[in-house]
């Protein structure tokens, strides 16, 4: 179901031209500018295919092109990530049931040189960190190449309908979706930033003094990006937790639900159980209610609510119970989620028999944390370290966001899980530091780095920054 009325967003204005796509031969209404999976979901299609070995139904999970739950055959091409592929008139979408068969008499392809694009700094990721890095590096005189695998810029800001905290220069009081628009406008008006959307970075290599980023555009075209420095701002991935039936369609990452309802105006379901009472879980509950979805409960394994008290109070006032010291035991349903069974847990985190509760829900939202996306940095050989305060494995870096490999920088959630505000500040630091290192920036820019570092310190000085600061101590080396 599509949302027509929303207190914050106007989807009627946002939706493109109405077109028709075909799911298993049946016509489905879609709008230009939305991804395949969003159009299918709006038409009530939750099962996107079946797994190869056990033929389990598969549905959306991350919605940002990182997991593998949304693979479908599109216009005859198997294994297309339908969550980041835009709809086109007349598209033929098919479910996958088994491993696609390789054509027996196919000839080996002929080798052809890839397209080459050169710049000073290559930035991977067009979210808050990448956009700020691009703006600042460009202003400091560098020729910037910016790539992102999604069809739109803004990263996860495009789904954040809430207003930001912090200081005025850090967009306090402005909604995330608006910040995405402002940053995109800034990036687009700079002539020395070249943007590549729907382009995945698949390798990061050192080639003499140069850095080489191999990209794939729209799944079909190889592009070589060369620069003197690289900034990796690849964000994060939703964490998964083990419970029975956790692969059923209808078990979504919290971010996927936000993408559905806040970016594309598609109702994720009718009744939702949220797992995790951190800020994401609490804000998600509020946003679901705004979109007219019923939130049955929030379960939280910790004895206390993790998120801001104001958010928790607001959600409770709206009648949503928050069950602390509770966990999800299993998801039940035939082809998709129909019920969730939760139970209380003891001090040793073991479910207490007899405390089971059943919720009739069609969506289970996992808001159990994020993990930095460090694959490219790990692959190129940057030193990594496990730091629980920052969400998992992160790369070792200095206070200017440079990793253990000269000329490779990191920023945003891929440097450790925090907030969009800190991602923007880290992006600014990384962008300027990279420009300084390749000598395109004048030394006055050093002051701007110091200013951003001070703002970061101030932002992290709050109660929620304490944990992050502990983590930062473990990874920042000079």
């Amino acid at each position, binding site marked *: 179901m599509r949302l027509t009325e929303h207190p914050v967003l106007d989807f009627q204005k946002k939706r493109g031209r109405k077109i028709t796509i075909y799911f298993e031969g049946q016509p489905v209404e879609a709008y230009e500018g939305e991804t395949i999976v969003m159009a299918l979901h709006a038409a009530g299609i939750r099962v996107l295919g079946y*797994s190869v070995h056990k033929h389990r139904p598969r549905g959306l999970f991350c919605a940002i092109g990182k*997991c593998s739950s949304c693979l479908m055959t599109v216009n005859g091409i198997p294994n297309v990530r339908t969550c980041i592929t835009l709809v086109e008139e007349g598209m033929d979408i098919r479910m996958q049931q088994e491993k696609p068969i390789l054509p027996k008499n196919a000839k080996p392809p002929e080798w052809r040189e890839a397209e080459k694009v050169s710049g000073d700094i290559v930035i991977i990721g067009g979210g808050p960190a990448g956009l700020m890095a691009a703006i600042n590096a460009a202003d400091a005189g560098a020729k910037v190449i910016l790539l992102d695998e999604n069809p739109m810029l803004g990263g996860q800001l495009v789904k954040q309908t809430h207003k930001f905290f912090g200081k005025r220069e850090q967009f306090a009081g402005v909604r995330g979706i608006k910040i995405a628009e402002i940053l995109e406008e800034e990036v687009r008006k700079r002539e020395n930033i070249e943007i590549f959307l729907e382009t995945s970075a698949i390798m990061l290599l050192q080639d003499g003094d140069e850095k080489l980023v191999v990209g794939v555009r729209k799944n079909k075209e190889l592009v070589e990006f060369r620069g003197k420095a690289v900034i990796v701002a690849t964000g994060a991935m939703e964490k998964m937790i*083990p*419970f029975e039936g956790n692969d059923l369609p209808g078990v979504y990452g919290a971010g996927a639900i936000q993408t559905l309802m806040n970016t594309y105006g598609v109702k994720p379901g009718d009744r939702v159980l949220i797992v995790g009472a951190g800020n994401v879980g609490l804000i998600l509950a509020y946003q679901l209610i705004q979109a007219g979805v019923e939130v049955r409960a929030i379960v939280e394994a910790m004895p206390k609510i993790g998120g801001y008290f104001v958010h928790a109070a607001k959600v409770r006032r709206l009648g949503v119970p928050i069950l602390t010291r509770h966990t999800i*035991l299993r998801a039940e349903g035939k082809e998709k989620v129909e019920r969730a069974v939760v139970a209380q847990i003891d001090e040793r*985190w073991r479910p207490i028999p007899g405390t089971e509760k059943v919720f009739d829900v069609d969506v289970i939202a996992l808001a159990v944390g994020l993990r930095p996306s460090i694959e490219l940095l790990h692959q190129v050989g940057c030193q990594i370290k496990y730091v629980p305060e920052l969400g998992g494995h992160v790369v070792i870096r200095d206070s200017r966001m440079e990793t253990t490999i000269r000329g490779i920088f990191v920023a945003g959630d891929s440097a450790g899980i925090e907030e969009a505000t800190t991602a923007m500040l880290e992006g600014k630091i990384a962008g300027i530091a990279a420009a300084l290192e390749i000598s395109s920036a004048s030394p006055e820019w050093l002051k701007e780095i110091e200013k951003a570092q001070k703002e970061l310190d101030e932002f992290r000085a709050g109660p929620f920054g304490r944990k992050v600061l502990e983590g930062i101590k473990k990874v920042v080396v000079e």
Partner: protein
Amino acid sequence: MIKLNIDLEKINPEEVFICGCDVTLKDILDLIDQGITDIQLIKRLTHVGMGFCQGRYCIDTVARIIAWKTGKDLKEIKLPVARTPIRPVKMKVMADEE
């Protein structure tokens, strides 16, 4: 200490999925019971981390399960090698055929 709220006696680990490509909790636990606690080896034996997500969805969970079962600190658990391409790409694209 790693806390995973699982009571192994009450659940069916074959119904708990670690990876989108059909690797279950049982597959992982069986290997750990045999003394295999290295993710690189678990990857080769179960294909966890070798699918379309290239470990984004599953490796972190595998690491937490190993830590939970063995009592090791997550710091001691090594990630499997990250190889190029970091996500699957058709050979045709790699050769850049027109």
